[in-house]
């Protein structure tokens, strides 16, 4: 069977690319600009993509490199001025006092950039440490350390004690999520 043209697969990765862009820029308009630039760069360089390798990792690397080279030029970090990264997350019922997803993401946004990035790649997107290290151009141990320090910092920011569980959400919402295909959570 002929392998699918990566150009046709690009659209499938756009939502994840946009979420990654949002986590880096923390600004909706800047994230969309970044994804747009990434798409154009990818399109012009698809001849360099090795069929059979991880297209999403390749696209994430382009996006990441574009972000950092653009930021080097601008020498400034765009803040989450419109709150899109945290506010776009749906609020869940809080009748039992369990943690809200937006609280979790507010804490996540306070992490140092390198830890946020490592957790975005490994934790949120499921890349292996090896893949994430390749994307960031650092050693595997560095990514592991950044991710672990990020998780520890998050635990601290959320004020979680050693024996406290990090509840996903309340049972009713879990049922709704499951009914909508979110049962893997």
């Amino acid at each position, binding site marked *: 069977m002929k392998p699918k043209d990566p*150009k046709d697969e*690009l*659209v499938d990765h*756009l*939502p*994840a690319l*946009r*979420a990654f862009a*949002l*986590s880096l820029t923390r600004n909706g*308009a800047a994230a*969309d*600009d970044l*994804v*747009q*630039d990434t*798409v*154009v*760069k990818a*399109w*012009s360089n698809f001849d360099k993509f090795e069929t059979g390798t991880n297209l999403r990792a390749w696209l994430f690397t382009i996006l990441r490199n574009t972000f950092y080279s653009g930021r080097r030029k601008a020498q400034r970090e765009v803040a989450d001025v419109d709150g899109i*990264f945290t506010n*776009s*997350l*749906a609020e869940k019922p809080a009748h039992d006092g369990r943690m809200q*997803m937006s609280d*979790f*993401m507010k804490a*996540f946004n306070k992490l140092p950039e390198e830890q946020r990035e490592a*957790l*975005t790649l*490994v*934790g*949120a*997107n*499921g890349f292996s440490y090896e893949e994430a290290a390749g994307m960031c151009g650092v050693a595997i141990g560095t990514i592991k350390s950044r991710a*672990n320090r990020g*998780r520890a910092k*998050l*635990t601290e920011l959320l004020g*979680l004690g*050693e*024996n406290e*569980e*990090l509840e*996903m959400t309340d049972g009713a919402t879990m049922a709704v999520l499951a009914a909508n295909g*979110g049962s893997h*959570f």
Partner: protein
Amino acid sequence: MDTGKKKQRSSDIDAHLKRAFRELEQEALPERLTELLNRLRSQDQEADEPSSEDGEAPSARQALQVSAGGGRA
């Protein structure tokens, strides 16, 4: 914290992150991104077809310039 609890905590945090990012991914894509893809595809098709006129097919960068005219803030 013992290793078992640490692993569980790490896995819970990662699960939270996955869910948060999946929520972000549910948002509709901005029109300018889908338009850009359509434009790039059209350019590829035009480049593949024998042209009756002189001139090169526009590049991906040119597609972005067209898109940027109606998109970038």
